């Protein structure tokens, strides 16, 4: 059984995460090992949720990436907080959540419309739309910092059974994603489309429906993350999403999903998220700044993608 465990691709990411954890805890500048673990789980949770969405899109095949995730997060966080206005009550919280999800839905539909109707390559489409969503967020924000309802804020920061609530949530979503990918017909159709779009179409897979659902799903998860992050941070800042672009792609790549499409790896997302957070912490503990962190993450991504590829016959 140990052998079977080690044959899984994502185990190495977890191993790496574990090693990094040890290094960082050993330096002891954070509040001991437990503190680091809680922090890791908390911040990884957000990366996991957007990472799952990005993973779905990347599984659609080469050329599919959603670059509008940060903007969607920001827009969803900003607008939902505005709607809730800091008021108390479960119904208010529910409306806020629905608003955030609705924005995600809208963004996903808009993205796919650009891709399908205007035949814009997904990178360009999501890049362009990200600018529009960001402007919408800026325009609706008007510089006033609205606080989230206290109950939601408490939830986002709080823990249950010692584990951060957001981590539980991310875990549940990960499980749902796993089920969708491995047990549902949608997951089969997605994997088929990502491996060979033409063959999938010829085998009767409704490829356009699959693509549309996937982009909507990704944007929806981004909206949810924006909502959670705003509640966690006590407000929606306009740059709240910027680092999640790299993160969402990095966790997919590090976690072992195939960048060429067709193969997704849900546990790997968790492993990648933890690893990424811990690397950052470790670098911070060593006093290395944001520059080194960015540099390293970029190099890691390229190295993994290159290592996973095979030489092409010229």
């Amino acid at each position, binding site marked *: 059984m140990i052998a079977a465990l080690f044959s899984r691709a994502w185990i190495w990411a977890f191993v790496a995460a574990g090693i990094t954890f040890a290094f960082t805890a050993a330096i002891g500048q954070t509040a001991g090992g437990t503190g680091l673990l809680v922090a890791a789980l908390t911040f990884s949770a957000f990366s996991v949720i957007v990472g799952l969405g990005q993973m779905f899109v990347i599984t659609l095949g080469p050329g599919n990436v959603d670059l509008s995730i940060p903007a969607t997060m920001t827009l969803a966080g900003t607008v939902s907080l505005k709607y809730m206005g800091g008021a108390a009550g479960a119904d208010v919280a529910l409306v806020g959540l629905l608003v955030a999800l609705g924005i995600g839905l809208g963004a996903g539909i808009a993205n796919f419309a650009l891709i399908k109707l205007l035949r814009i390559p997904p990178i360009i489409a999501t890049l362009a739309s990200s600018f529009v969503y960001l402007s919408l967020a800026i325009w609706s924000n008007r510089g006033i910092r609205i606080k989230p309802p206290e109950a939601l804020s408490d939830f986002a920061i709080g823990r249950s059974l010692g584990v951060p609530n957001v981590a539980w949530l991310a875990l549940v979503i990960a499980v749902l994603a796993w089920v969708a990918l491995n047990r549902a017909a949608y997951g089969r159709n997605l994997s088929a489309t990502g491996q060979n779009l033409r063959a999938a179409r010829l085998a009767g897979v409704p490829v356009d429906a699959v693509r549309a659902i996937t982009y909507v799903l990704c944007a929806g998860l981004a909206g949810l993350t924006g909502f959670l992050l705003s509640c966690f941070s006590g407000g929606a800042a306009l740059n709240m999403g910027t680092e999640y672009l790299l993160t969402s792609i990095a966790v997919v790549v590090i976690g072992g999903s195939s960048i060429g499409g067709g193969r997704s790896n849900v546990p790997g997302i968790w492993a990648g998220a933890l690893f990424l957070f811990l690397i950052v912490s470790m670098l911070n503990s060593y006093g290395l700044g944001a520059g080194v962190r960015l540099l390293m993450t970029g190099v890691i991504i*390229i190295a993994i993608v290159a290592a996973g590829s095979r030489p092409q016959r010229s």
Partner: protein
Amino acid sequence: MRPNLRILLPVLSLALLLGAVFVIQPRTMSYLGLNLLFNLAVPIALATVAQMIIIMVNDIDLSVGTFVSFVACVTATWLNDAPLIGAAILAASVLAYAGLGALIQARGLPAIVVTLGMSFVWAGLALMILPSPGGASPGWLRWLMTAKPPVAPMAIVASVLIAGLTHLLIMRSSFGTVLRGFGGNERTLARAGWSLIRLRASAYALSAVFGILSGMTLVGLSTAADANIALRYTLLSIAGVILGGGEFTGGRISPVGAVIGALTLALAGSFLSFIRLSPDWQIGAQGIILIIVLAARLLLSVRRRNRDVAA
């Protein structure tokens, strides 16, 4: 579309926009005014050419913005204080780009992910060089960018020069033609005995050279630098290439069109502030412009295809 018609679109849009600006702000119709309007167009134009070369070989470079920022940081620090080291760093970055191109071709890697990863490498390096805004422009660069040629402002002169030289390089020279052919039909070139790895590496290296020129001219104009100075160049450069009549695949691009596209976008920025568009929408406007341009092109190409079929 015949090449003459293709160039008509960007020329017309530039003329229209320029006309609109003159109407709203008649004071811009002067030497100084034009210079101010198109001031920042030069680095944008160079970045657009860099992007155009990558698009020419069927890839997209998502790291243009951060690369130009990185070059700007190097120029404002190393190139200023220790020119030899600065030049060496810049030369090394050209080699890095060439290596990337070779890697992408040899292993069949998706350029999106690789350039996205690289964008963070450049961003990280830029931050390491200049954690906070600073540095200073080398004297000769400053002198070059603030020169006042007699007839037309520096920005216009420089843009014309860039357009002309890149046109000669890409469209007229035998090397540029081979690169374009590489983007048009890779298989044919492989069959004719060309090394595809070398071709892609050359294209990427050439793009890096233009990226370097962009970063340097940017420092010459803004006299200082910071790690985020050119982040918006990524979208702007893509939009400029498309606006200028380029296509994402097939090696169909136009250097003159790309420069005109860059000028138009730079002008659009000024135009939007003249009509007092809320600054909230400045960012979104860029995205909307790109979408509109792509939609218009789609409509035109569909109409043309229908016409050809009917004919």
